[in-house]
């Protein structure tokens, strides 16, 4: 099984190509079943791979490469051909990610059968879904950072295609563009980092890079530069502060796609890349600290923004940003296993939350939570699964989120207590806004009778995946954390910060306190948003309208980036004006005019002065000849002879006088 692990990435790719070129566009197309079958195969194979990796006593690391091409380079004037590899590297994180990605993708594809039922571009949708998953799986298994980068960009392209799936509407078209360009901004950093990495070590291969770092070939400022550049790419991809602006807008895509983006294929890529190249970060404490702080800021800011959003999907989007901040912070603080563990559990409950939100939107045809309310009786399965996911994300024991979040908080506390308190506050906010979401959507009295009347439970193809994911959201944390399994599966590659980690003991009461406070914030959310019109919350909003406005404007980051874009636009307009008016007019046209004038002048001098002079000499000799001839009487031989004699004697006189 492990020998053919490359199939996991190639089968969805083949499926997407077959769907794209082998099927006709048709709302009743059978293309979805091909995509689902391919994904099922990948899921089963991933499970087998995971079993192999998990069953091995030592942390297993399987690597297989084939030479792709040789890159001719010149080092110190000598020509070398550095081989670039195409291969797979399977270790603990990769096996875990394979399972998560294939499972979520499988669930999303099955769910889409119901959600996208009757869409006129079903074939296109499934082709893109498969392609998206294939790119992500390629990123997960690749043993070479260059291939990883290619897959990384393919993930970006697929997300662009899927966010803008309903491209005939202006919103999705704008959102897809925004997502693509914003993530590209981060990718610039990643690209530069990869170039720097290659110039420093001469290889893109992860295992070789690990050895280079271990031998100290990449250290100090170079390691920091590489790590920070990569971090910039991850900030863009994983929607961290300050590049998180694209993720809330990405909600314009179909909801299952949002689930895929948020749980498995897009934003996970950034965290995964940090984990994959963690040894480089370990060589640079500055980069680790930066990652921790960026994660912390993101976790806190996004959580506060989620409190005021009324669009059900946007609340979830801010929640994702916040949770990704948790993971980034954990990785930065040295909690390698904690970050990846949270990535896994988060994938389960966040995809479930999105699928649930999709189910709600499917039922009431609106995203606005103010128009929902009281849906729990109409949609019992959706309600129960969403509540389970909410408990999981809020960190209530013994649900999945509790285990991973506690690991993260522990790691962060050991790194710095100040960061711990801010992060704990973000965790409490998480519990609060998720309670708010449940209250507004499912509980209380229906606020719009007509929408409520038409609401109905979703078909089995949608509820089935939700139930499966709900069971995982409940048990996955417990199962993975059982007997330290996750730490054994995800061993820290280097022991560098281990001593530092052991320095500070995490007090038990702190963890319990966070749990109690989390429960309290759930109660608070329950109290504030009780009743059909949630009067208490509205009064609070009136009281602190300034703060709410700031939060609703997302701290002005969108406006800031918009102004940045406008400034760039104005600058390019000015450059265009300068080019067309100043450079073209003054320099190009002016130079031409000058040449013209010069040429006219030269022509004048040529025709008047030089030509006339030449003509004048001709005329002069003509006149001279004519005048001389007139002197001579015609036909007199003796006269000719006399002239000859005179001239000869003149010459003779000249010769003699010399």
């Amino acid at each position: 099984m492990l020998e053919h692990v490359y199939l996991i990435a190639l089968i969805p790719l083949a499926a997407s190509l077959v769907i794209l070129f082998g099927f006709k566009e048709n709302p009743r197309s059978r293309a979805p079943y091909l995509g689902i079958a391919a994904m099922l195969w990948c899921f089963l194979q991933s499970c087998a791979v995971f079993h192999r990796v998990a069953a091995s006593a030592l942390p297993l690391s399987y690597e297989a490469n084939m030479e792709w091409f040789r890159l001719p380079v010149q080092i110190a004037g000598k020509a070398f051909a550095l081989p670039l590899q195409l291969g797979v590297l399977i270790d603990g994180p990769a096996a875990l990610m394979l399972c998560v990605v294939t499972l979520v993708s499988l669930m999303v594809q099955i769910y889409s059968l119901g959600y996208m039922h009757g869409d006129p571009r079903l074939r296109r949708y499934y082709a893109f879904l498969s392609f998206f998953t294939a790119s992500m799986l390629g990123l997960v298994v690749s043993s070479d950072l260059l291939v990883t980068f290619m897959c990384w960009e393919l993930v970006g392209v697929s997300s662009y295609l899927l966010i803008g799936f309903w491209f005939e509407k202006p919103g999705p078209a704008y959102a897809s563009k925004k997502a693509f360009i914003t993530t590209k901004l981060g990718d610039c950093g990643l690209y530069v980092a990869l170039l720097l990495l290659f110039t420093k070590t001469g290889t893109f291969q992860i295992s070789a890079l690990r050895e280079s770092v271990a031998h100290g070939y990449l250290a100090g400022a170079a390691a920091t530069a590489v790590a920070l550049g990569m971090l910039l790419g991850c900030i863009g991809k994983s929607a961290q502060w300050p590049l998180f602006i694209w993720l809330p807008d990405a909600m314009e895509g179909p909801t299952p796609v949002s689930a895929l983006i948020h749980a498995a294929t897009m934003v996970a890529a950034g965290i995964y890349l940090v984990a994959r190249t963690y040894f480089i970060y370990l060589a640079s404490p500055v980069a680790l600290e930066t990652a921790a702080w960026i994660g912390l800021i993101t976790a806190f800011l996004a959580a506060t923004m989620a409190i005021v959003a009324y669009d059900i999907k946007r609340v979830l989007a801010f929640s994702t940003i916040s949770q990704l901040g948790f993971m980034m912070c954990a990785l930065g603080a040295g909690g390698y296993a904690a970050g990846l563990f949270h990535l896994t559990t988060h994938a389960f409950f966040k995809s479930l939350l999105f699928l649930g939100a999709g189910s709600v939107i499917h039922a009431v045809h609106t995203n606005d939570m103010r128009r929902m309310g009281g849906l729990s009786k109409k949609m019992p399965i959706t309600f129960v699964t969403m509540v389970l996911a909410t408990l999981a994300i809020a960190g209530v024991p013994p649900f999945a989120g509790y285990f991973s979040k506690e690991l993260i908080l522990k790691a962060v506390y050991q790194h710095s207590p100040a960061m711990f308190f801010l992060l704990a506050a973000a965790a409490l906010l998480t519990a609060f806004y998720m309670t708010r979401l449940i209250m507004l959507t499912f509980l209380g009295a229906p606020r719009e009778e007509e929408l409520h009347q038409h609401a109905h439970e979703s078909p089995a193809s949608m509820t089935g995946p939700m139930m499966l994911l709900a069971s995982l959201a409940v048990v996955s944390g417990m199962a993975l954390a059982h007997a330290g399994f996750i730490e054994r599966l995800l061993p820290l590659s280097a022991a560098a910060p281990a001593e530092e980690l052991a320095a500070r003991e995490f007090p038990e009461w702190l963890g319990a306190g966070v749990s109690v406070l989390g429960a309290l914030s759930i109660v608070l959310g329950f109290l504030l948003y009780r009743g059909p019109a949630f009067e208490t919350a509205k009064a609070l909003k009136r009281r602190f309208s300034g703060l709410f406005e700031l939060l609703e404007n997302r701290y002005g980051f969108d406006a800031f980036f918009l102004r940045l874009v406008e400034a760039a636009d104005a600058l390019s307009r000015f450059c265009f004006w300068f080019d067309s008016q100043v450079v073209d007019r003054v320099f190009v046209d002016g130079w031409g005019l000058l040449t013209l004038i010069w040429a006219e002048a030269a022509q004048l001098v040529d025709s008047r002065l030089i030509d006339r002079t030449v003509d004048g000499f001709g005329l002069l000799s003509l006149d001279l000849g004519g005048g001389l001839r007139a002197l001579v009487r015609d036909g007199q031989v003796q006269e000719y002879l006399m002239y000859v004699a005179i001239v000869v004697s003149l010459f003779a006189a000249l010769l003699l006088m010399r």
Partner: protein
Amino acid sequence: MTLSSCLLLSGALFLIGIFGALTRRNVIGILMGIELMFNAANLNLAAFNHFLHPGGVAGQCLALFIIAIAAAEVVVGLALVLAINRNADTVYVEEFNLLKG
């Protein structure tokens, strides 16, 4: 007798010849002037040969050739004179303007 006296004699002879060729109206006179110039040249050749290469004969040979050529030339010249005389019924050169261009 020295080289310079010989050269003076031949120069005088040449000038007399050219004076005759330029001033005579009669074609026969012009031809005679030309003959005098020939002979001045011959005298030069013989004198240079005698004084500068006493043992050599190249100058005298050349002079002999020139005498022969001068005789041939006179034959041609007299034939031209006769032809002109027959056509124009005159021997005075100012009345010949056939060469006028």
